[in-house]
């Protein structure tokens, strides 16, 4: 799965051999998994598609058709899976399929073949609770298999085994999300500090910020070499800060024994970062704020902005299938949700970054993507789409009561994105 040689070399043609070989399935050979309001469980639908790909079946993603529907061969395994999970799947015969394809051809829609289940990794410390990360929750709920990786795997080159990597609320500046002073003594923080310091010692780094910079470089290299990176919450902002701060001390004294360099902001090398540029660092070691990249500044005294709603952009499915895939949804306007990094100030985005969702009338955007080397990345602000305020110690989100969550759908779009068949990008 490499970017720039991307999508559908012909969605229909790709599935034609399956259709021809299907024999008895000819008359009701297909299952249409609608993703509009007719779907009983939007989130589990992604799992059904993922597992079909794992079984070696092929699928199509019908972009902008019925909320971004999926088409599967009508195999008994797919039908069984959909039934067990409560996912709506409509039998479609060849005649109906012809009509669907005609509609797709005539509208701003496209059929993208999905070929192979991506190998998925989630970056998380070994003691991370399964309910502390929206992506882990979404993957668990949808039944999508993944491996957990951490610093050792990243610095040891282990990411090469994966197509897709997720980061959540990790702090790649190595400052423990800047909770160190405000939550001193809290058991969870003590455990986090000990775990990271032990890892840094084992890996031969003098302190945690040095380790995390190396990890950030490893992740940057993963993207350069063709990986798909999806990051949320603080991981977005701190990954870029750690990359840009390759030769600068941006960490507080409690993290590495020396304070942030006085001219650190000026010395950041933004050419190394993926998404952002010209950000100003937060100097105070006490404020749980990293820079002015985040538009909402949830932990900034006097600077915190209220939550609104964000709107997904419409793209041309035939010309821009990549962003189109990432914004497939049955809702265009989605309630916003806080995270340590909630959004991204527009004036801090690098040229060439594609905005996928924004809050109209505000100076920030919510969801962005871009390319680096042979790979691609997507950043989504906020912590948990169904827990807008998210405070430490909140009860875990139970996705079985949010099966239609449009915010979570955006996460799962990213998981299936690497499964799309490659072709040359048109834009």
């Amino acid at each position, binding site marked *: 799965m490499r970017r720039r040689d991307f999508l559908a070399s012909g969605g229909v043609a790709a599935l034609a051999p399956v259709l021809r070989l299907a024999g008895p399935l000819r008359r009701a050979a297909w299952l249409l998994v609608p993703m509009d309001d007719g779907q009983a469980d939007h989130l589990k639908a992604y799992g059904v598609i993922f597992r079909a790909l794992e079984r070696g079946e092929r699928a199509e993603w019908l972009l902008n058709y019925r909320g971004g529907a999926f088409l599967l061969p009508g195999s008994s395994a797919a039908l069984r899976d959909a039934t067990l*999970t409560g996912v709506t799947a409509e039998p479609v015969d060849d005649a109906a399929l012809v009509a669907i394809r005609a509609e797709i051809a005539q509208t701003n829609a496209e059929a993208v073949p999905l070929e192979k289940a991506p190998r998925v990794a989630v970056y998380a410390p070994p003691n991370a609770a*399964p309910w502390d990360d929206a992506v882990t929750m979404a993957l668990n709920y949808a039944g999508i298999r993944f491996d957990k990786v951490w610093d050792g795997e990243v610095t040891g080159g282990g990411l090469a085994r994966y197509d897709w990597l997720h980061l959540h609320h990790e702090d790649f500046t190595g400052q423990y999300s800047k909770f160190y002073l405000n939550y001193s*003594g809290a058991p969870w923080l003590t455990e986090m500090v000990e775990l990271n310091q032990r890892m840094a010692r084992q890996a031969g780094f003098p302190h945690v910020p040095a380790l995390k910079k190396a990890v950030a470089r490893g992740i940057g290299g993963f993207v350069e070499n063709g990986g798909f990176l999806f990051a949320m919450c603080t991981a977005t902002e701190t990954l870029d800060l750690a990359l840009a701060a390759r030769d600068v001390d941006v960490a507080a004294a409690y993290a590495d024994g020396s304070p942030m360099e006085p001219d650190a902001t000026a010395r950041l090398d933004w050419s190394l970062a993926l998404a952002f540029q010209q950000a100003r660092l937060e100097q105070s070691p006490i404020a749980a704020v990293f820079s002015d990249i985040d538009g909402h500044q949830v932990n900034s005294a*006097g600077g915190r902005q209220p939550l609104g709603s964000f709107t997904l952009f419409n793209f041309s499915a035939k010309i821009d299938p990549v962003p189109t895939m990432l914004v497939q949804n049955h809702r265009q306007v989605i309630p916003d949700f806080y995270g340590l990094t909630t959004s991204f100030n527009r004036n801090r985005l690098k040229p060439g970054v594609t905005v996928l969702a924004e809050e109209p009338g505000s100076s920030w955007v919510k969801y962005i993507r871009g390319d680096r080397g042979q790979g691609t990345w997507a950043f989504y602000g906020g912590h948990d789409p169904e827990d807008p305020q998210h405070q430490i110690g909140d009860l875990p989100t139970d996705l079985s009561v949010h099966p239609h969550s449009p915010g979570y759908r955006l996460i799962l779009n990213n998981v299936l994105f690497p499964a799309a068949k490659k072709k040359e990008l048109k834009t």
Partner: protein
Amino acid sequence: MRAIAWPALAASLLVLAPSLAAQQPEFERAFELERRGNHVAAAEAYRRLLAGNPADPNVLLGLERVLTELGRTGEMAGPASEALRAQSADPVLYGLAVRAWTAAGVRDSSRRLAERWGRIEPGSEAPWREWGYAALARRDRNEAKAAFLAGREQLGRPEALAGELAQLATVEGNYAVAAEEWHHALSENPGYRASALSLLGQVPGDRRPAVLAALDGQSDPALTGVASALAARWGDPLIGFRMLDARLPAGQEGAALLVDFLEELRPLSSRDAAQARGRTLEALAARTPASRERWLAEAARAYTEAGDQMSARRLLAQVGDAPGGAPTLAAAAGGTLVSVLIAERRFDEAERRLGELRAVLDPEEHDRLRRDLVRGLLGADRLDRADALVADDSTVEGLALRGRVRLLQGRLGEALTDLNAAGPYAIDREDATTRAGILALLQVLDADSAPGLGAAFRALQRGDSAAAVRQLAELAATTPPERGGAELLLLAGKVAAAGRDSVKAEALLRGAAETPGTAAAPAARLELARLIARAGRRDEATALLEQLILDDPRSAVAPQARRLLDTLRGAVPGA
């Protein structure tokens, strides 16, 4: 530190409000720009106004607000200094300057300004409080603490700024210091009690004993009052009462602390809370002779709720002995006595007393007690008497209760009528759910009378689940599956499972599951899967659930089966 307000904001609004009526057009323009969110232009407009009058507090506060919005509070230092040069005796300007220099991180200047301000307003805590809060706005607790301590030293009073220092120490987890500071703060101003409770109430579980010990260790009844309230909030109301009782001062001061504690207990519904409420009310009665009978009657009721009939009786005797008590008080005491008698299973006496109280009791209270009596009679298997007491009750609760009486009597036709009439809303949700299940069973049985079923429900009522299971299974054996036999087997299986007889439960549920075409079959398969899952046989439960869904994806139990599958797979919390 969210609980700590920023007085500067309030100050700015207070100053701004009277000026709006008399402001000049330039000021109006600046304010309008600010209101529209055009903060950059507003800042420039305010600056232009300051060129003419550098000490205008309204303009300065406007500039401060927009610079805060822009994240440029450091730029306030210049205008603030200019203002002080022009008008060096205005406390508002000092407040502004202290905030500006603190925001700029220049601690020495903040201190010097606070000292100068202090000389203008001798004895005032405001300069130090302003400095400290400005430091907190920057999340710099060390500077805030330094500001408050400097203020205390300057003012020469050990209790000065105690509330602020108490809040800081609490947030930092230094509970010994926090207790001492709260002691000073509460001595100065009892209004700090709410802040103390709010902040200390958030302390993590493992630190709570240390907090209680530190507060109690101050030997200050007011602080012990805080500790006892915290103990109640943290689930130990009786410990809270004992702590308070040990340090309770005599007279009105003690009574006030008891009333405060009572307020903490009111929202709590546990037996311990009811017991603590009874003891608190009893202690209050001893300290307030004028209201003694009222508190004793309430205490007796609390003891009844706690199941402590002996204490309730002891107090009711005292209320009864009181000469010239108010009629409403006598009625309340009488009602409590009826509750005590029901709890003691002295139903005939309870019914007689209730009859005597009919004229004086509030009708709703009378109905409530009558239903309590009916429930007691049901438990004692005195169905005829219970039936007589609800015969004329046409409220939804009464109908639900009458349906239950008739079910236990085996009068299924009448039970069905009453339960249907009660509808889905009577009593609580759990009761309504149970009632819906019973209704479903009665509808499929389609019989006017079934003494055997009544006997089985009576056994259940007594808590004899083994007898209930046996009777239900016997009844099922003589009833065709499609005429209710399957439902009876399912019910027997559920009762056996609830009674932890998993072997019998599994056999019965399998029997119900193998009744093709009945509505009970999928429900029995689901219950069987639950039983097997609880036994740790996850794979078997998973296979069972999958087959259940695949056989009938549209079954009413399919969503529950999917939910259980998710739980078994760890796909949702609670696995």
